[in-house]
């Protein structure tokens, strides 16, 4: 159970400095963040953060307790072991030639990825999915020459109508 990836969903007050309070907590206590995303939540004035953190069980428990101590944090849920939907979006700028362009288009089709920008020598591919899907997509495109990648980091919600209190 060492260094398992945990997905923590955190509901916070939408106030300036909140992201810094949270990221500061991680760095000063030596917790490892894989990714952190934030955006407005369902209620005005609140934001939802999805934090992917690596660690064993006691570490992740400590992460959650420390998060909960922050006055601006309303709810902390570990959704790793609950049925959840976890997605990430990546934009991948890949080099193409007249010859390889159809090949790349074929390649991305099974991934339900789409092309969102086309130029003479490159394409921007947009892919949405869990981390392994995005990694697979990147590996397939790498031989063609990846120029730039932008990834959002994961966002996650519990499945069904439950919202699980913490």
């Amino acid at each position, binding site marked *: 159970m060492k260094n398992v990836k945990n997905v923590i969903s955190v509901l916070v*007050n939408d106030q*300036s*400095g909140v992201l*810094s*309070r949270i990221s*500061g*907590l991680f760095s*000063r206590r030596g917790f490892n963040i894989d990714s952190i995303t934030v955006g407005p939540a369902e209620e005005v004035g609140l934001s939802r953060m999805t934090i992917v953190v690596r660690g064993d069980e*006691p570490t992740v*428990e*400590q992460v959650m*307790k*420390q998060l*909960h*101590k*922050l*006055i*601006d*944090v*309303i*709810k902390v849920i570990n959704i790793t072991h609950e049925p959840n939907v976890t997605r990430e979006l990546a934009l991948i700028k890949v080099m193409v030639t007249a010859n390889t362009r159809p090949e790349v288009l074929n390649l991305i089709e099974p991934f339900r990825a789409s092309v969102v920008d086309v130029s003479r020598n490159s394409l921007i591919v947009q892919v949405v999915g869990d981390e392994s899907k995005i990694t697979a997509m990147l590996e397939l495109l790498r031989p063609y020459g990846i120029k730039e990648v932008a990834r959002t980091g994961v966002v996650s919600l519990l499945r069904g109508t439950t919202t699980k209190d913490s």
Partner: protein
Amino acid sequence: MSASGAKTEKEKINGAQMVIECLKQEGVDLVFGYPGGAIMKVYDALYDSGLKHILARHEQGAIHAADGYARATGKVGVCIATSGPGATNLVTGIATAYMDSVPLVCITGQVGTDLLGTDAFQEADITGITMPITKHNYLVKHIKEIPRVMKEAFHIARTGRPGPVLIDFCKDVGVQLAEFSYPDSVYIRSYNPTYAPNKGQIKKLAKVIKEAKKPLIMTGGGMIRSNASNELYKVAKTANIPVVSTFNGLGAFPGSDELHLGMLGMHGTIAANWAVNECDLLLNFGARFDDRVTGKLDEFAKHAKIVHVDIDPAEIGKNISAHIPIVGDLKNVLEALIEHVEPLDIEEWRTQVKFWKSEYPLTYLKGDGKLRPQFVIDTICQKTDSKAIIATDVGQHQMWTSQYYTFNEANQFFSSGGLGTMGYGLPAAIGAQLGRPERQTICISGDGSVQMNIQELATISEHQIPLKLAILNNGALGMVRQWQEMFFQKRYSQTIFKGHPDFVKLAEAYSIKAFRATTPEEAEQIIDEALAFEGPCVLEFVVEQSENVFPFIPPGAPVENMMRGDE
């Protein structure tokens, strides 16, 4: 926002006045601070407000004094400083209060909102800087936020696990005008400390106590913050359970009681440390398993079931996992526990700890005419009948004080336990003496520590604060010197002082009476004289430089590696 109509202007007050009004509404009667550009408006409002203000000589002195005042009175300490350097000078004091869970509200000035983020004169991002060392902090950019923020700040500082809260006011907020009304109550959706313990856990706790053959209570600073000494006394005395204290827990249980085995940890007593090592049930009441207490983690209390009670859930399982975790206020927990507690049949264990206690008392060399620091503290303890309020700085003198002064009450001993802040003692003693004027207050310091905030002698002189400052002068940075002797082959790198001031003359320069002793006889005599004198005074004790603090469990070592000093 400027006052628009002359008609309504009368009912409006400015932001600075509002800050002072809020302090009054919170029942604050004494504040500590230091004025400056960005906070001048608040100082102007303070001028004829009736609020008492103690002007320190350095912002760090002001905040440690507020800390000492808070610890001595149980109220929230208030400290005011200006922007930039004023605010950053508070940082050490804020971190000190944060580590020891002391309720403080720090009010700082900030540059005007139009200048925020421009590296303006005396601008520092103090909310950013203090994020990791405050329980919470605020940047106030509009007058309408003031009442809510002040109300929340005091609420957060004093409830749950207490701690420092900082409020940074942009300069222009001080001149904005608005009508004032102070909220009656606080609602912070995300902040609901747990006071009442889980009943099932209390039953479990009662059960393990009943089953224990070698139970031991460990009291921490949380015991003092929750004011639960009476309840602890009942539980321990009814069940006959021996008690050990952490440094911050000293005084929560009477030090002179036969059940008390003294302090545990790095410089704890042999009895306390053996008891922890041998116990089969360790009841941790409000301590956080600091590394100075536990030493080597996986060797700590290795035969014991661990019960951990704390109001802060994040402390439970942080360093040592608990078999029975209980989140709640100790007063409530112990009240609930009392109903289930009966006398335990643990005579064998009682005999064992009594033996350790009588066989291995704390000792130092006496009778050779040399003045030893332990003797000084021992004598101060005797001559004050263990009843003085004691503040210390950090180092050897601090550990000797914890060993040789007997603390029988909570809130009798003030020291920077968590952060270990040199320079804490003198200003903290000022705050403590002002908070409890009826009690004799003594600051015990070292020649190194005292020089870190010695400018506060001026504050003492100005207000004739009748505290006694005892300086144990060994001409060295004693604790570091001790470590260098033991672990660095006596390479005394930068720990032997040269160029000391004459402390007696220095005190006299501040118009403070001063004494010096170099022998045990002189020491006794000047302690008598100082205690009989009504005003402030400074006592310098020129003590043996080579004295070390024992017992000593080297950092990260198990209890078996304890050095007793008499080998």
